[in-house]
């Protein structure tokens, strides 16, 4: 991952996304190989590496003994920062937490607890921010607010590493994406290249009969009764396909044309293509 990137880590459950993050964060030891954050090895130079890194964990964890402000002050102290209130106030304001500053962590809703986790990861202004499925189980409003804030941090020069199950989030925000499968990298490229690697269109057709006129000017990918999924090179080929149907007298009951998205790349690479 390069400095200043908005980097996406995608992969099915158990692919090793969180394990990779845990190795970077020092929560797990790698069996082999090494990792470093801004040039600091996560094992031999762990103190510097951890100062560079802010991690928003996947699990919604909190310490029920403390209020939001106490939690953030303690977290600052763990990173060796005293009197961090100005920055804490700023972070809370951006995350819409100011009104909850003196509320006990126990009393917060799930979404609010998630915001506190984000704030905790930012108390020491880390140049690298890792978000492990930050929007899992989070309502739309918070999701949008969160992305706005993360994007701003990225624009301000922070490197962002994101894991997510929501492919459209990765598609929208990430410049570069690594797809993991069974602990290995299945693909690593810019989001644009990955999407371009799947050229063409997908045509879904429901006809009144269970057979396509032969020969048919498009590649059949799958058929389920009268439902056909076809791959087209471009819109010109769509035109040809429709003309062929008309000519054969077939009636179209339902039709959908789709550009491939990351999900298709993902499914192709993880070998579960429909």
């Amino acid at each position, binding site marked *: 991952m390069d400095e200043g990137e908005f980097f996406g880590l995608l992969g099915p459950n158990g692919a090793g996304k969180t394990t990779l993050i*845990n190795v970077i*964060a*020092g*929560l*797990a*030891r790698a069996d082999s190989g090494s990792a470093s954050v801004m040039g600091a090895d996560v094992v031999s130079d*762990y*103190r*510097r590496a*951890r*100062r560079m*890194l802010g*991690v928003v*964990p996947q*699990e919604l*964890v*909190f*310490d*029920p*003994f*403390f209020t939001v402000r*106490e939690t953030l002050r*303690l*977290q*600052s*102290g*763990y*990173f*060796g*920062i*005293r009197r961090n209130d100005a920055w804490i106030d700023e972070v809370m304001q951006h995350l819409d937490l100011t009104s909850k500053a003196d509320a006990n962590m126990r009393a917060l809703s799930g979404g609010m607890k998630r915001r506190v986790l984000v704030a*905790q990861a930012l108390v*020491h202004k880390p140049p690298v921010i890792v978000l492990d499925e930050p929007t899992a189980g989070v309502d739309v409003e918070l999701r949008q607010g969160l992305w706005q804030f993360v994007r701003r941090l990225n624009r301000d020069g922070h490197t962002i590493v994101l894991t997510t199950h929501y492919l459209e989030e990765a598609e929208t925000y990430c410049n570069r994406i690594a797809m993991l499968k069974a602990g290995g990298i299945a693909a690593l490229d810019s989001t644009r290249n990955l999407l371009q690697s799947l050229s063409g269109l997908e045509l879904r057709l429901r006809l009144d009969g269970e057979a396509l006129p032969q020969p048919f000017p498009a590649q059949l990918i799958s058929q389920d009764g009268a439902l056909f999924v076809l791959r087209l090179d471009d819109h010109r080929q769509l035109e040809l396909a429709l003309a062929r149907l008309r000519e054969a007298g077939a009636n179209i009951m339902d039709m959908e044309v789709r550009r491939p998205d990351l999900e298709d790349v993902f499914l192709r690479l993880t070998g579960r293509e429909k």
Partner: protein
Amino acid sequence: MTSFQTLLHKELLRFWKVSVQTVAAPVLTAALYLVVFAYALEGRVRVYDSVPYTDFLVPGLVMMSVLQNAFANSSSSLVQSKITGNIIFVLLPPITYLEFFGAYVLASVVRGVSVGLGVLLVTVWFVELRLHAPIWALAFAFLGAALLGSLGLLAGILSEKIDQMAAFQNFVIMPLTFLSGVFYSIHSLPAFWLRLSHANPFFYMIDGFRYGFFGLSDVAPAASLAVVSASLIAVSSVCLLLLKSGYKLRH
């Protein structure tokens, strides 16, 4: 240094915020022991000729409270953090294993000694306490609390569930404290149990602490101090090795 101070502060806040449960409750328990045992046994048991039974009992109860609460503090804090997952808040920052160890153990010492002082303040009205050599009493209180704080940290590192911790507490800590001579002098025991008691490090902590009050003990206080110090070095070394390796904390 700030990391260490903050972690210590957090550990102190953690028990202080629920001090009714962590300080007041054990003080009440110790006071109840004193009332019941003193009523049942005063005049029937004579340990040292010059010391009435109730007087004899008080330092033992104080020290027992110090030890149990020092253990409870580090062990429950760590195991709760592991179970709830908020342990990552202290694993992600650049806190060294020495700072981690120091903060947890020192907070345990503060809790243990606070409860011990509380017990002393409550029970001192029932007895006429002598203070033969307070330095000895203090030395045993602090070293004993540190030993049990480390032992609690060790138990917290090893336990992954509350019931494992409870087993450690009920099958190791409780028998060792109860069979340490808090309620009797081990010299009144049959030979086998007497020998066994000498293998119990808790016995030396209680006996040495009591020496600070009465100037009387079953074992020379210097010998007890040596046993307690050696135990502290052994347990804290194991703790530090495990913390350094990240055993059961960093997978």
